[in-house]
């Protein structure tokens, strides 16, 4: 077990810079998820930690040692691939023990470790089967078993659940979390699915265009995103971004969305936004769950307004409502009994205590 440190890591393919000098410290036992859209450099970063890609510049440290020029097999890591990469001609037992056999471990030790991993993953009865006789979920378990038996310093997961169907994905997600709780190995996990990132990670690293946008716990990223990209990427349905202006109204500040619609800024935030009154390119960021039906008693920070619903999507436990504001489609989440209907007006309330104000030019949250 060990910590992993990235120091100004750069990866360049000819003209393209895939990773642009990122720094990251991953603590011992930590479960860190790299998340971002495709092409953001997350897989490249993982493959550089694994030693499958050379580093153009910077240093990678595993357990305090610089491993830039150490081949993958000497880095004491294990990796789980998206397409499982099981050896098709070997049984599950042979697949899981391959690394140990190459290192000439005693037979008894190999059997002990494989049995232990098989017990953790509940695949004891599959040990004699070939990969093609297994379902997708079973193959994924075997791939994880192959990693566990090695007892490496670091686990690397490269989108391990992307090939599974939605239901199995949720199930295996829980499995991975359980396994990590048992073995406590430092883990770096790559995914493009923000739900996977939020549910699994101790800390999430949001990447975009070869840079790290923000590192933080799932709660930090959700409630205090530092950039528009993170705000929009984390959370589903995504955060609403509505063009707005900040104006001074009777000693306080107000967010003006349209001529008819403006929200007073909560007193606690006024000082923060004071200097942005002249900024013509601002966005109000508000998550759908902070736009709800207006009740009899408004909570502190809630501001009621009238909206003409265009589309409603009943989800069962809630109903998503969509309405236009200042040329932007805005999504809200209302109680299914709130009487939301397509094309009908509804009285909604926006909770400004949870608002974010974004400078459109820099993309940063103010």
């Amino acid at each position, binding site marked *: 077990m060990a910590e992993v440190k990235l120091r100004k890591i750069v990866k360049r393919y000819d003209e393209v810079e895939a990773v642009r000098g990122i720094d990251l410290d991953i603590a011992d036992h930590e479960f860190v998820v790299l998340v971002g859209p495709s092409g953001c450099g997350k897989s490249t970063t993982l493959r550089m930690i694994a030693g499958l890609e050379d580093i153009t510049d910077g240093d990678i440290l595993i357990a305090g040692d610089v491993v830039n020029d150490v081949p*993958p097999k000497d880095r004491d890591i294990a990796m789980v691939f998206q397409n499982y990469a099981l050896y098709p001609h070997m049984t599950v037992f042979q697949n899981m023990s391959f690394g140990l056999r190459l290192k000439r471990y005693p037979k008894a030790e190999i059997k002990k470790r494989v049995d232990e991993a098989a017990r953790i993953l509940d695949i004891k009865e599959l040990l004699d089967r070939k990969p093609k006789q297994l379902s997708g979920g079973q193959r994924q378990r075997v791939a994880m078993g192959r990693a566990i038996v090695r007892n490496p310093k670091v686990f690397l997961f490269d989108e391990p659940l992307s090939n599974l169907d939605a239901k199995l994905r949720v199930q295996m997600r829980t499995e991975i979390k359980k396994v990590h709780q048992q073995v406590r190995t430092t883990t770096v996990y790559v995914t493009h699915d923000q739900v996977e990132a939020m549910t699994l990670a101790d800390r999430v690293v949001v990447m975009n265009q070869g840079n790290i946008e923000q590192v933080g716990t799932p709660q930090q990223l959700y409630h205090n995103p530092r950039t528009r990209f993170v705000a929009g990427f984390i959370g589903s349905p995504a955060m609403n971004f509505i063009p707005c202006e900040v104006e001074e109204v009777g000693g306080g500040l107000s967010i003006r969305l349209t001529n008819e619609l403006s929200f007073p800024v909560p007193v606690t935030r006024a000082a923060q936004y004071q200097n942005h009154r002249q900024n013509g390119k601002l966005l109000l960021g508000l998550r759908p769950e902070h736009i709800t039906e207006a009740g009899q008693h408004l909570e502190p920070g809630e501001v009621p307004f009238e909206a003409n619903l265009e589309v409603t999507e009943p989800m069962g436990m809630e109903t998503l409502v969509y309405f236009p504001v200042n040329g932007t489609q805005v999504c809200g989440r209302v109680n299914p009994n709130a009487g939301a209907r397509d094309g009908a007006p509804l009285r909604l309330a926006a909770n400004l205590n949870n608002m974010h104000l974004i400078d459109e030019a820099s993309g940063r949250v103010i």
Partner: protein
Amino acid sequence: MATADAAVASRPAARPRYGSMSQDRRWALRWSYFFLVLFAIFFLTPPVYMLITSLKTSAEISAATNPWWVYHPTLSNYVELLTSPSFLTYFRNSAVVSVFVVSLTMLISVPAAFALSRMKFWGSATLATGVFLTYLIPETLLFLPLFKMFAVFNEWTDIQLINRWWVLLFVYPTLTVPFATWIMIGYFASIPKELDEAALIDGAGWLQTLTKIFIPVALPGLIAATIFAFTVSWAQFLYPLAFTTSADQLVLPVGIITSLIKGDVFNWGQIMTGALLGAAPPLIIYAFLMDYYIAGLTAGATKG
């Protein structure tokens, strides 16, 4: 998928169309069978004719009887050939040459294909194309310069290469190695890259990745390449004809022609017998490994 679902959903209404589709299929099958039978007849006629002729005496062959029927069947041609020392020499030469060539070919082309398909080094792509281009040069163009090279080599070193059966061990691979390498490159390329990466992380070196992962996974391709190399070296005619002349140095295809055609006298019965016996080993190998051969040749056509 969507169209299949739609077809299932609309099946009751579209029954006549469904019927006509099956009729189309039936006609396609009939035509397929028609042409398959035609080709089978076309390609099986010569061996059948060989078999019939091999069972006749010289007198019956030259008699003006129906050439497609044996009136007095005899095994004398087989007995004579199988007891003739020179025929057995040809057979042994052919067998030794083929086995060696196949071994040499696989020893060179498997690691070569692995290197060309997996290790990215300077010029690897060009080299892979070069390997294939080599195969495109016909042996009819190569045997004259090769002959000249051997003659020069002889002048410089005093080592006689011409009219030695073992020189074929080094000449045949010029034909077999490029093609076998090409087949194996295609096969190795169809193995997902994550498989060698997984092996690399598991602690395998390149050689272990090749022997423990690639060769077992690519076994059908390997067998196809082996069969190919064997067939080429067993049936090779031009090179042994050019490079060997003495009776004890000949391989089977050339031996049959040179020893059984004396002047303008063609010993047809024994020629046919010799050809049939010569064709037997590849035939037996194909029969046993047919499935592997087909799997090997079609590998890479679809993503498995």
